[in-house]
C-alpha cells in the first residue's frame, strides 16, 4: 500500500493535491483514500492531507503514521515542530521538499535516515501559491511511477473543474511541470508493507483520575497568553514599512490589521510585530502612501 502525506498551509491547495493524486491513482486502477486532516480550516496555518492507495481494499483509517512519501509544499514549515512533518519518517520514506533550497541542505539539517529530494518551485509565481497543490500532486505521481500523465491530467480536470477554466488550465500546466520535474526519480517511492491491526503499537495511555469539575475543566486565569503563539511563522510574505514615506496615519494600517499586529507609538509611528503578523498584506493594500512593501519571507532577515 502507498501512504502519502502532503504538508502545506491552509490556502496552498494540499487538500486539492490529495484529491488530484487520489483520483489519478483511482484512474490507474487503485483503491484509494484521500482526506485532509480534519481541523478547523485556517488560511496560513499548517495543515496536511493524506492519500492511501492499494490494489485491494484499504482497512486503515486516520493519520498516516508510516508514510512512504511526504511532500512539503512550503519549506518554512520544516521549522515548525507543530506541523509534525517528520513524524514517522524512516529509512524507506522519501521526503520531497518544494521550494528553493537544495536537498543536501535538508538532508544535513534534518538528519533523516531516508532519502530527501528537492523540487524547485520557481515556475510558481508569488500570487499563485494556491496552485501549489497541482504541482505537488504531479510531483508525487511521478515519484510513485504508477500513474500515467494522461491519468494525472484527467484527475486535474475532474478535481479542479469547479474553480473554472482558467484554474484548470493553470493546474494542468503545473501538474505536468511537477511531473516532469521528477523525471529522473520516477518510481523511486515504493509501497510500504500492509500493516494489520495486530502490528500496531498500543497507544501510550496515561491513566487519569477523575477530578472535581473545578480542577478538571480547563480555565485560563490570565489574559493575553496567546502572545506565546508565533503566528508569524504562518507568513510567506513580509510587510515592511518604509519610514521615509510613512505619513504616520496609523488609523489606517493599525486599524485594519486583523491581528492587532501593528502598534503605534506616541508620535503615531507604526511598528509591525513580526512574531505575530500573519502576512495577509491588508496593511499594504490599504496604506495610502504606498509606504509598505512585501518581501518574500524566506530570505528576509528576521
Amino acid at each position, binding site marked *: 500500500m502507498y501512504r502519502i502525506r502532503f504538508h502545506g498551509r491552509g490556502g496552498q491547495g494540499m487538500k486539492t493535491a490529495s484529491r488530484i493524486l487520489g483520483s489519478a491513482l483511482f484512474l490507474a486502477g487503485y483503491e484509494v483514500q484521500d482526506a485532509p486532516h480534519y481541523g478547523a*480550516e485556517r488560511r496560513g496555518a499548517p495543515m496536511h492531507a493524506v492519500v492511501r492507495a492499494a490494489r485491494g481494499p484499504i482497512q486503515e483509517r486516520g493519520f498516516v503514521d508510516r508514510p512512504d512519501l511526504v511532500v512539503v509544499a512550503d519549506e518554512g514549515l520544516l521549522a515548525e515542530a507543530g506541523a509534525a512533518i517528520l513524524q514517522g519518517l524512516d529509512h524507506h520514506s522519501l521526503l520531497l521538499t518544494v521550494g528553493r533550497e537544495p536537498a543536501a541542505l535538508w538532508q544535513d539539517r534534518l538528519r533523516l535516515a531516508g532519502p530527501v529530494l528537492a523540487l524547485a518551485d520557481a515556475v510558481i509565481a508569488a500570487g499563485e501559491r494556491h496552485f501549489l497543490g497541482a504541482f505537488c500532486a504531479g510531483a508525487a505521481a511521478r515519484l510513485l511511477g504508477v500513474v500515467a500523465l494522461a491519468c494525472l491530467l484527467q484527475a486535474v480536470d475532474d478535481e479542479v473543474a469547479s474553480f473554472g477554466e482558467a484554474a484548470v488550465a493553470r493546474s494542468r500546466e503545473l501538474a505536468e511541470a511537477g511531473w516532469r520535474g521528477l523525471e529522473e526519480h520516477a518510481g523511486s517511492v515504493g509501497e510500504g508493507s500492509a500493516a494489520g491491526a495486530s502490528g500496531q503499537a498500543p497507544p501510550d495511555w496515561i491513566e487519569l483520575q477523575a477530578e472535581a469539575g473545578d480542577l478538571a475543566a480547563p480555565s485560563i486565569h490570565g489574559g493575553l497568553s*496567546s502572545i506565546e*503563539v508565533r503566528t508569524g511563522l504562518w507568513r510567506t510574505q513580509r510587510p515592511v514599512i518604509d519610514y521615509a514615506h510613512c505619513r504616520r496615519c496609523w488609523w489606517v494600517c493599525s486599524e*485594519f*490589521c*486583523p*491581528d492587532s499586529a501593528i502598534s503605534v507609538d506616541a508620535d503615531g509611528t507604526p511598528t509591525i510585530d513580526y512574531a505575530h503578523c500573519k502576512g495577509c498584506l491588508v496593511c499594504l493594500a490599504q496604506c495610502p502612501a504606498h509606504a509598505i512593501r512585501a518581501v518574500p519571507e524566506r530570505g528576509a532577515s528576521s
Partner: protein
Amino acid sequence: MSETAFVRWRDLPRGRQLVGGAPMCAGCSGLEVLHQVLDVLGEKTVIINSAGCMSLLVSYPYSPLRGSWLYTAMASAAAGAQGMRDALDLRLAQGMPAEDDLQVMVLSGDGAAYGMGLSPASGAIERGLDFIYLVYDNEGYGNTGQQQSDATPHGAHTASCGSYRGWKKDLFAIWVAHRPAYAATLIGSEPLDLARKVDKAARLKGPRLLLALAPCPTGWDFDASATVEVGHLAVKTGIWPLKEYVDGRITHTKVPRERLPVEDYLVRQGRFRHLFEPRRDEARLGEVQAAVDAYWAELPGG
C-alpha cells in the same frame, strides 16, 4: 450626532485590546471587527461565544483577550449571556463595586445568529436582557468549511448547496421587529462608522445588536490582502447597507452616492465565479442587482 467621541479617523482608539497569536485565518475580517469593537468597548467586557470560527479564539492555554470568555453551544450564546448578566447582577446586589461590572457581549457567527441561535436571542430581547449581540457575518458555516447558512447570499457557491438559490435572511429587520434598545449594521472597512455605533451601543442598556458583514478570504475565496477592499465594495454597491435603529427609527449612516454595479463586488470573489464563467449568467446577475435596487428604491428619498 455630536455626542460621539469619534468625529475623525484620528479619534479612533490607538491602543489594542487584543494581542497577536489568535488562530483565525490571515486576513480574517471577523477578527478585525472584534478588535475594532473591543478597542472601543475596553477591557471590562465579557464575551459569550457561540461555536464557530471564533470559538478557537481561546484555545487552552492561550487567549488573545484581556478579559473573560465563555464558550457555549452553537445555539445557546444568548442563554449564556442571560446567565452571565444574572450572575453579575447578583454580585452587584451582594456589594460588588459598580466599577467592577462588565459589559456582557455575545460573539456569534451568522450560522448561529440567523439560524439556530435566533430563538434564544428572540427570548432574550423580549426579556429586555442587557447585552450586546455582536455578529460577524461571513455568510456561511465558516469553521466547518463554508456550508450554506441562513445568511448566505443569493448565487453564492457554498460547500453544501452549490450555487445558493435562496435569499439572505434580514436579521437586522428581525431584531428591529423586537424593538430592541439598539441595532446597527457594521463593517470592518468603515472603522469610523463602526466606532460611532459601538460607542452609542455601549452607552445604552438593554438588548443591542451589532451586525457586521465579515469578508472571509477562506470561505469567499479571495486573496487575504483584499479583505478591506471587498468590504468597501459591499458598501459601495449597496449590497451591505450601513444603518442603525434607535428610538424606533432606522437611519442609514452611509448612503452610497452613486451605487456601483453589484458585479464589481461579486467578481472579486471565487464563490461567485460561476456567475461569470464559463459564460456570464445574465439572469442571476440581474436578480442580484434588482434585489439591491429594490432595497434602495424603497427608502424615503431612495
